[in-house]
């Protein structure tokens, strides 16, 4: 018994070291963001002697991060709302309504889940260009919705499959139409799954760079992640400003993670336990 306890402590040391290695890069970046250029060049590791918020202010205002931030917020918010609406409608229909071809449809949606964006990006770029949607908010929103909808439908369908069919039947007997059942019963009942899928989709959209690069070529339409990549070239000799830009992009994710970690993990693992 004492042998296994000893083993556990021996294992705990490298695990704790790994935990530090996981946190440190972000702490390092935050520290650099608070330094002056001179301080960074003289010593990379020392704690900044005073907090130089002017780097953050510079990144936010003169570098244009505020504009990119706003673009990201608008696009992510619209995408997530649409994804949740369309995903829950489809999930409810697939899980709780009987109609011809429902299992075929579900399989088709599942197949779309395994088509990675890289495989369709060339024709998609052409479709978006032909329809005049390139470089517009609706174009990028539509691209995100198309990308993450199969996953959303998959999770919502498996969630609604756990809702007892009697609830739907009872609501029908009470005189609700199918749409009424969806709007008044299923949508509110889906809240836990919607929260989990919604957070995950928000992260996917917020973190994306490839789709955004492809759909938003002009500088003023850049999303935040593309904005960060453009900082690298512009501020290669001003590391604290660069680090400030990175920090601005990372902090919202950190906040979401601190409050909704369990929901994120639930969304990630739902595919594993139900697939």
């Amino acid at each position: 018994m004492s042998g296994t306890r000893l083993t556990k402590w021996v294992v705990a040391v490298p695990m704790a070291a790994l935990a530090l290695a996981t946190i440190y890069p972000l702490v390092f970046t935050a520290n650099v963001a608070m330094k002056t250029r001179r301080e960074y060049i003289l010593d990379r590791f020392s704690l900044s002697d005073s907090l130089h918020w002017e780097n953050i202010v510079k990144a936010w205002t003169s570098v244009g991060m505020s504009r990119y931030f706003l673009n990201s917020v608008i696009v992510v918010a619209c995408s997530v709302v649409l994804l949740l609406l369309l995903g829950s409608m489809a999930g409810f229909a697939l899980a709780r309504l009987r109609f011809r071809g429902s299992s075929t449809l579900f399989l088709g949606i599942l197949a779309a889940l395994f088509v990675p964006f890289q495989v369709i990006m060339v024709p998609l770029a052409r479709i978006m260009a032909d329809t005049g949607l390139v470089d517009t908010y609706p174009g990028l929103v539509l691209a995100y919705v198309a990308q993450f909808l199969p996953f959303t439908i998959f999770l919502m369908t498996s969630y609604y499959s756990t809702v007892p069919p009697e609830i739907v039947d009872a609501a029908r007997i009470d005189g609700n139409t199918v749409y009424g059942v969806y709007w008044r019963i299923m949508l509110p009942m889906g809240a836990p799954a919607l929260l989990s899928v919604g957070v995950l989709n928000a992260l996917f959209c917020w973190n994306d760079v490839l789709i955004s690069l492809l759909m938003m070529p002009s500088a003023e339409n850049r999303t935040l992640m593309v904005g960060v990549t453009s900082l690298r070239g512009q501020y290669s000799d001003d590391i604290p400003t660069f680090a400030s830009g990175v920090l601005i992009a990372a902090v919202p994710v950190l906040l979401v993670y601190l409050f909704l970690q369990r929901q994120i993990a639930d969304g990630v693992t739902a595919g594993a336990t139900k697939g």
Partner: protein
Amino acid sequence: MSSVGPAPAGPTEGAAIAPPARRPHPAGPSSRRNRRGSRAERLAPFVLLAPAVLIIVALRLWPLLLGVNFSFTGDGDRNGMWVGLDNYLTLLDDPLFRTALGNVGLLVLLLPVAVAIPGLLATFVYLRVPGHRVYRGVYFFPAVLSPVIVGAIFNLLLAYDGPLNTVLGGVGLGPVDWLGDPDVAIFAVVGVHVWATFGMALVVFLAGFATLDPSLLDAAKVDGASLPQTIRHVIIPALSRTIQFVFVTTMIGMLTSMFGLLYVMTSGGPEGSTYLPEYYVWIQQGQMNQPALASAASTALFLIMLVVGLVQIGILRRAGKEE
């Protein structure tokens, strides 16, 4: 599928998105009177599904066919002309694409490591190593960060005059040109990818452990099994489905979600040594303006994923049966 033209699909979908959700209110009272069986009611499943299906077909499945078709046509002067397998032959001749394929091979070789690390860590967390409550939350965090942010941070850390080399210099090692040496850069990028994503697999493993029957572990303990024996004979067989899932998703992740890292950290360099197929597709489409060649590379990537995925599942199934 051919009836859904790609060109008009985009805007009409945008318009079709809102109405179904609003419909219940005006439709509610009338259909409440003539109960079930009304036309509107029978159509309801299709109305609920229509916007989603339209978007998926028009912007995911249709482009897939379009892209495969596109890969057999030419670029530039031969735009739109049928060129057979020319693009695929060009790919095989292109040293950059060959490097990309070689790097895919490297990823496949590294895959067992990328699965074993989170698997082992999850086992220890499950066995309640001291501090186990903290590890899960800490390890999972980089997995929710954008590859762009991760790449940008490691750009600083791995710079030639950066902190890591300063530390190495302090103990008399290096400096190593992490992102500038063609022999080293791909390992640096893959290492960062594993650092950033092992928490994802860890969380999936922990969800698998949650379904594990604790009495199995107790029995193993009573029988005096060592930790390696317990892992080999109890944990691996019980979690075979989870392990399968992690193998496949980790592989997909390596092949399709490293773009951000490559874009920020190396731009495919030095000397093209960090190219992966997805980056090659992007360069040919976005920079070189060779969409047909890019489509051929896309199709090749899709085939690689199908083959690797099916072979993996085959191997893992067989291994599972031998247990």
